């Protein structure tokens, strides 16, 4: 038994299973619940791939934050929590056929790129623990500690990290918060 593969199968299976459940469920509250489970299982996949910080962020921001937002949305908008709106079967069928084709194309491609196959030798022994929080923090502040031994001087020059995108994202978030608050504010009746 190869334990990483076993856990991959477990988390990947749960992620896919609950994603399908989201599609099949017709009740919006159940959909939200399945989505939480799917996202949580995805964070398990992130941990498994050695991305501990991103996995933690996934759990905190997505599962914690975004889902709370969603549930608020459900509570604020639903006339009754079990209202279901049927889609016409024609659109269902089109979506299923197109989706099936897309899935086929994507999986087919994934298994035809040699570098992505499991036979490819990994860069790091799977038993080595990886800690990514510090390098990510440094990268956001402008230092790429993971690329210090970069031999190519031209690439080293451009190593300002992700400081600029980080600032843009921060401003972006601020704008979004203000904008969302403005959009969602209670309507004043103008008579």
């Amino acid at each position, binding site marked *: 038994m190869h334990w990483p593969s076993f856990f991959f199968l477990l988390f990947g299976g749960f992620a896919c299973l609950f994603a399908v459940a989201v599609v099949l469920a017709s009740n919006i509250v159940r959909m939200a619940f399945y989505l939480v489970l799917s996202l949580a299982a995805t964070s398990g996949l992130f941990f498994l791939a050695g991305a501990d910080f991103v996995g933690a962020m996934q759990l905190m921001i997505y599962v914690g934050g975004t889902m709370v937002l969603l549930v608020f949305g459900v509570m604020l908008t639903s006339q009754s929590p079990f209202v279901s709106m049927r*889609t*016409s*079967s*024609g*659109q*269902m*069928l*089109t*979506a*299923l056929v*197109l*989706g*099936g*084709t*897309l899935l086929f*194309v994507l999986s087919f491609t994934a298994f035809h790129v040699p570098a992505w196959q499991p036979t490819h030798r990994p860069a790091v022994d799977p038993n080595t623990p990886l800690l990514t929080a510090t390098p990510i923090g440094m990268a956001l502040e402008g230092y790429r500690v993971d690329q210090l031994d970069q031999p190519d001087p031209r690439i080293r020059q451009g190593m300002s990290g992700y400081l600029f995108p980080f600032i843009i994202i921060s401003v972006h978030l601020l704008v979004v918060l203000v904008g969302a608050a403005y959009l969602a504010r209670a309507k004043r009746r103008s008579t």
Partner: protein
Amino acid sequence: MDLQTWLPLLLGLAWLLPLASFAIVSIGGSLPQIQGHHASYRSQKIAGVVASAACGASFLLSLLAMAIWLTNHPLGAEHPGGHPGTAHAPPHYSGDFYSLASFGDLHLAIGYYIDTLTVTMFCMVTLIATCVHVYSWGYMHEELADVVDNEVATRDGKALHRPGRYHRFFQYLSLFTFSMLGVVIAGNLAMVFVFWELVGICSYFLIGFYIERPSATNAANKAFIVNRVGDFGMLIGLMTLWSSLGTLHFDQIFPQLAEPASAGGLSYPLLVVAGIGLFCGCIGKSAQFPLHTWLPDAMEGPTPVSALVHSATMVAAGVYLVGRCYPIFVPEVLLVIAVVGAITLAMAATIAITAVDIKRVLAYSTISQLGYMMLSLGLGGWVAGLFHLITHAFFKSLLFLCSGSVIHAVHTNDLREMGGLRKKMPWTAYTMLVGCLAIIGAGVPAWGIGFSGFFSKDAILEQAWSFAGANPAPVYGLLLWVPVAGAMLTALYMFRLWYLTFAGEPRNADRYAHAHESPLSMIAPLVLLATLAVSIGWVWPFSELSVTSLLEQARPAGTQETVQGEWLSSLTIPDEHLSHAPEIQVPAGWTTFSAAMGGLLLATMTYLWKWLRAEEIRQSFRPIHSFLWNQWWFDELYDWTLVKPTLWLSRFFASIDHWLIDPLVHGITHVSRLVARLLDSLLDRRAIDGSLHTLADQTWNTGLSLRQLQSGSLRQYVLFLVAGTLGLFAVASLYWKFAVAG
């Protein structure tokens, strides 16, 4: 035991017994008519028993021949022509029963060519014919007494009364069995052609059995005429072969073909002509793509006929002939065969989804499965194609007999009036379920067990996979993905049929109330055929005996190797044995399995669980539905391109008389007035005004049709995005294939 004497004797007897029964029944049935009264109930009954007994005896003789063959040629011990490059013929026995005439070089004879293919076909045809005969005792019993045909009105508006024709039915069935066995045993192409036409005429009689119904006579005429088109091509093929080889005997043709052109063989272009010509005949008989329109109409005949003639044996004769004449076909011709097969299977499968007549669904399914066989033969899968022919014969005759049992119970062909019959007629329902599972190829690839269709369809898909691997050009890849999609459609329409007939609630309470299980003489053949539909693909326990190993012994010389096309040098027909490699077998098996399960799931979702509503789907895809509902408008197309122009032409000639004289008499005044008016209407109204109006209208219409795209529906936009992405992917991969990778 001397096979050279015993095999022709046994099979010849098996072949002639139905002829004897035909003679007895037709003479015995005609005698009372000469005396001025109709055949009695008792004598008609006896006719049925005589015909069935003759058929059963033929089956026993064929089995005996098979046993004798197997004791003399143990399976697996010899692989004829196993060394690539040597044109070593498979074990066979050939000769002439009776020499008809000799005209110079042309030697016409009633001959035989017997190998395992012949023996296997004999067993299959006689067994199914026996089952159908027995089944007909029950199905045709109404014909024993005087019949009231409600579908035909006489001049005074009442339903037609006519005497029963029970014995006629068995007479035609016997003649058909005889003719079909003649095609199978034939030792030369001339004899094949004679019996080929004989099965055609039997099919004509049987389709038009209810001769008083206009639909039946039209269908019979259509079948006969459409088949002549194909036979014309076949005659060309035969003449090409005869004029260049000087013989039509199989045992003389095949060795000559192995020789180079200078030493008496055919030159390459002539081989192509001969191959395409022969295949034209098979297109007509096996209802392939351009000439398939007759088969659905042929369902006007009684259901046992559809089971025996129009699904299991006669339509398979085309496939059989392609298999028999396989050495004649060069790679380019094989490609044509494969392409025709692929088009046929896709087209027929799509039409079967919308058909509501239970027999028409099965008819289109037959066309589709015949397409699979042709495709397989064309891709080099000789054993796979003929194996599917054998398995298909069993499960398709089972399906037809089951549908006959249903029609017998509810007296309608319309699927929309059935439903819920599972409780009323359990034997029919579950034997038909077995047939459905067999035709979709249900089985578990990992364990290698399944219904008979599982093995044969897998073999075909493996060969297609192997072909796609040998020919990397993406166009050839279509020959793999079309059958895979076809497997999915097969599962979809077969289970649609089953759910609509047997599952759910009865949609017509009146018909449901009168439904009943069929009598024993109809159930017994169903059970026997269901058993065979499950197990005919299996290997006999503790031996090597299986249909594939039998066919393997008859594999024609020269098919063991991978061949290249001479004109299309990039075309490779791979050796069939290469397709048994695990790196082909495993992915091909799983692909087929998942395609079939996908179709099954879709059918279950729509017709059993009703998650998707068929009515809504029909509404939203109205253009596609009407395209399929009208069978791709083939009948209309032929009507407009062939029938109507002929009529117009004759009307034109008829009116010449009228129009040549009048203008001369009424003379020039009319002409000058006409010219003036013509100029006005043509130049001013049509040309100038018309062009401006057209331009304006076109712009307007374009705007209107583009407006439809802006539906404002968010979800539709998402689908457009996905479709666009997939389209881009397809374009990019084709560009990569052709422009970058070369």
